[in-house]
């Protein structure tokens, strides 16, 4: 083994604060490889235990509404059209036409070229920086594979931001990560974060998709979570939804633990930084989604159950929640024909 020449990395604020001013490929690697290991059996047992919480009556009603408020209603198909986007937006604004008390979802999540249609369809309901509207999230950086050059990824991102995207869901380069090029992954996230900058100096929120199904081990998920946070990600997100397995409860629990560690490290209750978590793909039932709410509340705390700190990336989940919600109100189950397709 020879001594590598120190390769300096982009000086992202969080990383230089934690690792020091001489941020290099090597210092980043030493930090990531020095993280405590994850015991898979123990992690999965803890997730399973959280999944046995029994959420009934008033708690269930609260949870169902909360789930809707935390959904990124998603369509990411090659067959997406402006018409499909506008009906998705309509569903996002009025999830259940039969019950006006139903809350709105947090955001719609679409491909970059569909952003203008989503913005137009939302009209005055588009948040565009306000707190009361619906956000437009765009997947970017050669989603879902991430296999493109950095200039292409940056252009992809800038394009979506210019079109009015409030949030960018980027993918990391899993190939680079698995081959040990942590610095490359890091620099790309920093660059994409910079591409999220709008003309007025504000930034679109950056969600970093780890694609945990391809990272395969929990140790990798923990390292990638740290890497994404250190590079400036506002959110860490499990999956693209295009790879199986997508979000799982143990993986989400692990990412929440990293987020809790970061909060503790940056000051905890006295000004700690709160990073968001977004499990995406594979969460289809209210019952499953409630397990995620419990996991969030019992690990990082209830204050994370807000749209700027926790999201579900999902498409079919919403309708199951609406059916459960109708059941709570009317006392009996309806059926799929009593909620709208999209």
């Amino acid at each position, binding site marked *: 083994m020879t001594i590598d020449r120190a390769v300096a990395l982009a000086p992202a604020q969080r990383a230089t604060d934690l690792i020091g001013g001489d941020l290099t490929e090597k210092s980043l690697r030493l930090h990531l490889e020095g993280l*405590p*290991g*994850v*015991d898979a*059996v*123990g*992690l999965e*047992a*803890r997730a399973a235990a959280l999944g*046995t*919480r*029994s*959420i*009934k*009556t*008033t*708690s*269930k009603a*609260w*949870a169902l509404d*909360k789930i809707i408020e935390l959904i990124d209603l998603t369509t990411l198909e090659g067959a997406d059209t402006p018409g499909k986007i506008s009906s998705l937006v309509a569903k996002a604004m009025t999830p259940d036409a039969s019950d006006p008390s139903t809350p709105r979802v947090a955001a719609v999540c679409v491909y970059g070229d569909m952003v203008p249609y989503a913005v137009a369809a939302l009209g005055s309901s588009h948040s565009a920086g306000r707190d009361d509207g619906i956000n437009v999230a765009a997947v970017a950086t050669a989603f879902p594979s991430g296999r493109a050059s950095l200039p292409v990824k940056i252009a992809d991102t800038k394009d979506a931001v210019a079109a009015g995207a409030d949030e960018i869901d980027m993918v990391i380069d899993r190939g680079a990560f698995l081959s040990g090029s942590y610095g490359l992954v890091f620099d790309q996230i920093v660059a994409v974060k910079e591409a999220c900058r709008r003309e007025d100096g504000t930034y679109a929120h950056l969600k970093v998709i780890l694609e945990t199904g391809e990272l395969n081990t929990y140790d990798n998920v923990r390292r990638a979570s740290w890497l994404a946070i250190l590079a400036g990600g506002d959110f860490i997100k499990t999956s693209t939804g295009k790879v199986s397995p997508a979000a799982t409860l143990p993986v989400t629990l*692990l990412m929440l*633990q990293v987020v809790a560690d970061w909060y503790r490290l940056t000051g905890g209750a006295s000004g700690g930084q709160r990073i968001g978590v977004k499990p995406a793909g594979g969460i289809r039932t209210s019952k499953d989604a409630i397990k995620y*709410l419990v996991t969030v*509340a*019992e690990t990082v705390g*209830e204050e994370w*159950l807000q749209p700027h700190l926790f999201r579900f990336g999902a498409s079919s989940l919403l309708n199951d929640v609406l059916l459960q919600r109708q059941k709570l109100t009317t006392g009996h189950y309806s059926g799929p024909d009593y909620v709208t397709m999209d």
Partner: protein
Amino acid sequence: MSFLDYAPAPESTSILHLKKSYGLFIDGSFVKGHGKSFSTISPATEETIAEISSANAKDVDAAVGAARRAYDRTWSKLSGADRGKYLFRIARLVQERARELAVAESLDNGKPIKESRDVDVPLVAAWFFYYAGWADKLDYAGLGANPRALGVAAQVIPWNFPLLMLAWKIAPALAAGNTVVIKPAETTPLSALLFAEILQQAELPDGVVNIITGAGETGSLLVNHPDVNKVAFTGSTAVGRAIAKSTAGTGKKLTLELGGKAANIVFDDAPIDQAIEGIVNGIFFNQGHVCCAGSRLLVQENVHDEVVDRLKDRLSTLRLGDPLDKNTDIGAINSKAQLERIRELSNIGEAEGAERWTAPCELPAKGFWFAPTIFTNVSTSNRIARDEVFGPVLSVLTFRTPAEAIAKANNTPYGLSAGIWSDKGSRVLAVADKLRAGVIWANTFNQFDPASPFGGYKESGYGREGGRHGLAAYLTSSAVASAATTRGASK
């Protein structure tokens, strides 16, 4: 409203059809006891659940006599395969009536329903299934060909896992061909009496299992009965010592599963989040009423503060309250006497200079409760680091090197269990090799399986329960048996 104040989710008690009073289960039916009857109460509410008979010398004699007759006339004449059929049947009935048994257990013992539902009762069924499989394979138990049953087994069990301890005792005894007289603890007789109904349902031949209730005196009469061939006891070291004395020289085979003061050793390279869970599970599972509880936390000094901080955060999320609520993590202390002992030892801990921290939680007004508590700055000489508290109280000590960890872990009169937390496999194996404890868990704690032998070193008792080794407690090799007596079940 806070989401974390989960709405009540109580398990219904409507599934239970309890009688107002219960007799003794002798020779296949319930009979009235001749001792002074007593009430069993719910430790969470102090309300009476049922009136329980107490067995006096005459009743114990009747129970042992029934067991002897059943052994001579029926059970020793059955083939192993036929004994196995009864055990399989019992196991299936336990599964069928699982919810009922879990509710009864939580009601009478105070443990959270999620534990009786997800741990105790499933393990009870698993124990019967496991030993059912052994009944016709005793030649392979490691005791040579044709090992023989001992005869009548007297079994006395504790209140911390009432039904599970019953299964640990009865399943191997029956599989090996013995008949049984068992006495559950006086504070937790309910599930054993429901189990007697299951035995009737399974049509187990009369007298093969007899269940007698009562206090310590009944237990003493039972283990000292002259027509008993085998004594198995789980409980305190003091009582275990008395039994060892009184059975010495009687020819009764004896196994004891007694107290513990287990070390849970956390190295600085441990998977930290899982280690915290393991520490919590190690000492707060079943309110710490676990003989193998990880009550001494040995933390490597360089991670002590971080571990303690995270532990306190985690303990603050535990939910104490109604044992029948499905979201309860910490239930009630089993009895007033036990609560007083926990309080006394905790006060001594404080007086001796250890720093006490108690999880912030509201204790119900009625019933017996003790909030999860940890002591830091504990010295090895403090009583809370030496005496078995048998409650939700953790003592935190530190070490600097693996050698010191091993020395401190072994520095106890007990030796039942230990835990090791490290990401480094070679270290886990090296340390495990030097610990004097019957059960050692690596990167987990309080895991039980019928295939795994369980038992202690030193004052934690002798003999093993579970696995192939558990059969040895109820069998004798035929070479010895033929020299002494030819009485014994054939395989």
